[in-house]
């Protein structure tokens, strides 16, 4: 029973008085409006999605559902209207903002959104209501240790403020401006404007039963450009048989590395840990050396232990199948076809029988792959998908679909070091959240994994195809426990999940994997894709098939599985490479490093400032100084993971710099107390508020401002 507090007639006149109270409640679906009356246990829920970033216009969407109109007598005739209004998407574009929505501000925005849940927002004075809510958010943030030093500056946790910071800035931490004073960062202010405007429109619609048709479906593929997202209450964290997803302690040091950097970086980290020196070059390359004339070169996971021939053979899937078959190893029956020769492929499929798999002959990352095609109709649809992919004109393979679980087995030399069970990208319903929300939330979890943070679940043709197969849309709310698949292949690059299973792998399966690697001349490191019914059972007592061999398979898959015990694949590969090439390495890896860096290139003023900032952020000590116009020297001391991460990042540096190469060599430990810029102290930043903002703070009564430095 609705209990209004004011008359709806006031609203009908078009005036938005402070008479209608609405409560932001559950996320809605486009499929049908939710009933107005909700169970008692219903929780407030809404989602905020922002797209864009630096340099781009920022657009925002706030989804919400009004399920209770409190304090308002709602005539019966308005109930359907209210229901209709309840099931609309609220959307308002933020004004284009030159700087975009700063990444570091997102936790603040997320906390503000969390505070809105379950609150009553006065419809007649939405702005004030939201700003009051933001005050509560500010208090919550301060309890977490956040404090804004001044407008537009980084919000830092209290315990990050060091005495040296305070000394240099010349001001005490309590001379700060906070959200409490309602002087907000422009981005936050605009975010609140989004809500305010959207809510005002919704209130007007509910009151005037307008037929505005601005609301509607998401633009196609718009969700792919969502950069920030939050949803309240949050969906449950994904788990596997009660296992929580792995969290990795080195994730914080790798977050700013490019997508493929983990491959090369992990090898480089091991090289440094085992006492080798490193020459780090651009584009993911480095050379490790022992100072006695022996060298190892790598680019990502392109290593010195595999031949160019092996890579060429393995990267053509039909060549791989032809070779393995000749060596007596099980492979699916199939053959290759020239690009777009779909009719002959369809005849072949009819001959060998369904289900079949269609894929590019020299593809990667699962592009264009469609598996488990059950009939000709699905095959024709799969041809269309293939034709639309980047490799749509290239040769393709049609082969029998072998049922089984997908495993990526990593072999180094003659040893199986990892066996990852892969599953396609998916979400599991909870009866409350939409497919989109579940997908975005799972991507948040993936973004915490160093290997997966740039391998998120992507909304592409394959995902839409799978949703369509299941009769779902992005806005559908899957039932609790319902698995919704979002990819055609198990590739990790396509958002697939990874579970480490090497400890349970039957020895005969490991032997078969090693035989497959030995069938390829010159292959010293390989990630094999194998379909098995059960990885604990003997190889010859089940259906099994080798699908492909990857001569430069991602090291990160075994190193950073979502579930299961991680394996140090990089260490195995580095040590095997060193042994093969005759390099001398230490017996055990170092937990701490002390390295001298030589950085050569166009490394101007910003570079040492950047290095200083990053070294402090990583908790490292040492120094940096300029040797000449194109050379800097530095010493880094600290734990191996952050030191190695910064060495890797040093070849990129800050924007505008062009390092040519970075050399890192071991030096004796000196126990520096902190990180210094030798002879470059004048470059240190000072915390200064712009004169305009300082003047504003002086003119606004009752507002404290910082002293201008």
């Amino acid at each position, binding site marked *: 029973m609705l209990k209004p507090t004011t008359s709806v007639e006031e609203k009908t006149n078009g005036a938005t008085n402070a008479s209608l109270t609405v409560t932001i409640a559950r996320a809605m679906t486009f499929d049908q409006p939710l009933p107005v009356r909700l169970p008692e246990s219903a929780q407030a829920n809404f989602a905020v999605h922002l797209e864009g970033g630096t340099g781009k216009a920022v657009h925002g969407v706030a989804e919400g559902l009004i399920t209770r109109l409190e304090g308002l007598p709602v005539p019966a005739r308005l109930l359907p209207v209210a229901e209709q209004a309840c099931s609309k998407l609220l959307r308002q574009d933020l004004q284009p903002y030159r700087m975009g929505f700063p990444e570091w501000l997102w936790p603040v925005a997320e906390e503000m959104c969390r505070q809105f849940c379950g609150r009553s927002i006065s419809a007649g004075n939405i702005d004030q209501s939201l700003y009051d809510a933001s005050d509560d958010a500010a208090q919550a943030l301060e309890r977490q240790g956040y404090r804004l030093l001044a407008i537009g500056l980084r919000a830092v946790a209290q315990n990050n403020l060091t005495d040296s910071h305070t000394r240099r800035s010349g001001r005490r931490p309590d001379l700060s401006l906070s959200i409490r004073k309602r002087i907000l960062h422009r981005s936050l202010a605009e975010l609140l404007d989004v809500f305010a405007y959207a809510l005002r429109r919704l209130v007007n619609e509910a009151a005037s039963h307008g037929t505005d048709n601005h609301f509607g479906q998401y633009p196609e593929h718009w969700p792919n450009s969502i950069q920030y997202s939050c949803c309240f209450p949050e969906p449950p964290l994904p788990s596997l048989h009660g296992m929580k997803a792995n969290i990795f302690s080195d994730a914080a040091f790798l977050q700013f590395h490019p997508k493929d950097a983990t491959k090369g970086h992990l090898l480089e980290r091991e090289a440094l840990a085992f006492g080798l020196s490193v020459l780090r070059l651009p584009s993911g390359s480095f050379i490790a050396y022992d100072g006695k004339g022996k060298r*190892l070169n790598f680019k990502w996971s392109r290593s010195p232990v595999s031949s160019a021939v092996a890579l060429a*053979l393995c990267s*053509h899937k039909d060549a791989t199948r032809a070779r393995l078959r000749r060596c007596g190893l099980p492979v699916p029956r199939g053959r290759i076809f020239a690009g777009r020769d779909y009719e002959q492929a369809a005849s072949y499929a009819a001959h060998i029988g369904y289900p079949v798999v269609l894929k590019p002959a020299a593809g990667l990352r699962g592009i264009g792959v469609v598996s488990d095609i059950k009939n000709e109709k699905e095959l024709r649809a799969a041809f269309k998908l293939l034709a639309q992919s980047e490799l749509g004109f290239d040769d393709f393979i049609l082969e029998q679909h072998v049922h089984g679980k997908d495993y990526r087995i990593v072999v180094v030399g003659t040893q199986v070091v990892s066996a990852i069970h892969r599953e396609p990208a998916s979400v599991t319903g909870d009866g409350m959240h939409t497919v989109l929300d579940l997908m975005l939330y799972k991507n948040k979890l993936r973004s915490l994994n160093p290997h997966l943070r740039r391998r998120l679940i992507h909304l592409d043709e394959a995902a839409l195809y799978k949703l369509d197969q299941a009769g779902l849309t992005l806005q559908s709310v899957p039932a609790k426990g319902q698995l919704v698949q979002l990819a055609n292949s198990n590739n990790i690059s396509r958002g697939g999940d990874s579970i480490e299973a090497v400890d349970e792998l039957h020895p005969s399966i490991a032997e078969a994997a090693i035989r497959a690697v030995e069938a390829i001349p010159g292959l010293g490191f390989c990630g094999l894709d194998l379909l098995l019914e059960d990885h604990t059972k003997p190889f010859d007592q089940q259906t099994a098939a080798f699908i492909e061999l990857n001569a430069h398979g991602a090291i990160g898959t075994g190193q950073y599985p979502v579930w299961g015990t991680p394996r140090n694949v990089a260490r195995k590969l580095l040590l095997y490479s060193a042994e093969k090439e005759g390099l001398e390495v230490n017996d055990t890896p170092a937990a701490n490093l002390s390295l001298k860096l030589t950085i050569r290139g166009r490394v101007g003023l910003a570079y040492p400032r950047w290095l200083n900032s990053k070294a402090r952020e990583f908790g490292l000590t040492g120094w940096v100084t300029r040797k000449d116009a194109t050379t800097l020297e530095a010493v880094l001391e600290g734990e191996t993971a952050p030191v190695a991460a910064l060495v890797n990042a040093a070849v990129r540096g800050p924007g505008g710099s062009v390092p040519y190469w970075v050399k890192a060599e071991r030096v004796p430990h000196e126990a520096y107390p902190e990180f210094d810029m030798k002879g470059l102290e004048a470059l240190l930043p000072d915390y200064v508020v712009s004169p305009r903002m300082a003047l504003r703070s002086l003119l606004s009564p009752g507002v404290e401002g910082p002293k201008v430095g």
Partner: protein
Amino acid sequence: MRPPLITLPPELQDGYLVHRAVLARGLDVLLLPRQVLLASQSDSDAGNISFVHGVPEASTVAGVTHARDKRLRRYLLNIAKLPTPPGITFSALGSRSLDSFIAKVGFPLLLTEAIGENPSRRTNEIWNKADLLAAVSQMRKLPEDQFLPARSLVASAYGENILSYVEDEAGERVAPPHARLLIEKIMSGRYLRCFVCGGECLAAVEFEASTRMPKADISAQLHDGFKSIAVRTANVIPGLFAASVDLVLEDPSKVPESQTYYIVELLERPRFDTYMRASPELGPVLADALLVRQAQRSSVPLGEPAKSAAVRVRLEGLPDPSGLLPMLKESCDAMGLSGVVNVSDPVEGVVEGQIQGAPDEIALVMEALASGIHFGQRTAAIDEWQVQAEHQSGFRIA
């Protein structure tokens, strides 16, 4: 030798010459797409040796990858104190550096891709900035086979699959703005190419200055100092067992320290076709030398080179096996090859039989079939097993 009817493009010559050498030395062959060749002794446990585009198994993935990165190559050469022409890499996003570079070094200039095939796509000599900017725009256009990795005749099978692109105003796919290009000053002097294999400089040819085409074999005249420099250059990148090194210098017969010289190219592919243009015998000789050195490294014994060979063949994955046979007969007849073939599995596209004749011709036919040249269709795999020659009169279809 009769003039061949089949002509292979330059990019396939390395693989063909090695294939020819393998057959002449009595080895069995498995020929897979993109010129992947596995060779082994019949009925032997000696193992395989393998090549791709003539690049031997001893050249590593990391080695060929680094050789294809011209920016990285320049850095490594400079660290090793080997001279390179003045040059910079830049992207469409950072083309402001061009002005200061041009002001410093002047013209003529050469523009190439910074990462890619060796030799990569490149311009002719550039003499002014307008032409340079036009060349940059043209260079960003992606070659058609960029998105055909399985069947490209130009792209190396071990190359990085770069599928990223953006669309320009005309809707054409072009390289993303961050893709890098290399621009270098064209240095004047005599242009040489040296073939280095297993730590030894085996041959050198000189190019004509005006046409940049090979003109003479100068292996005997090349000073030992330059041979050492060629070997040092190849060693700058670990994992290159065979390479071609290009130099620009004043006099190849004189000691390097007495003159100015530059390293201008380091190719992980042998490029035997260029040596053959200077001297036709060089190609087969160098390919055989490469095979011998790889076989020694792999402990695979080789027979003496023979002038004829007989192989049992199995051609697999043909789209139209019956349609192939008349064309195959016509070519083999014209090339003096004898034998017999038939379709053994029309569904899987398999032709089997026996072919005998000169290794040059057998290899040429097989390479054409594997690449889709001349016959209009392409095999998925070709097996060639060495057998005793039989009396065959002509080539027939069973």
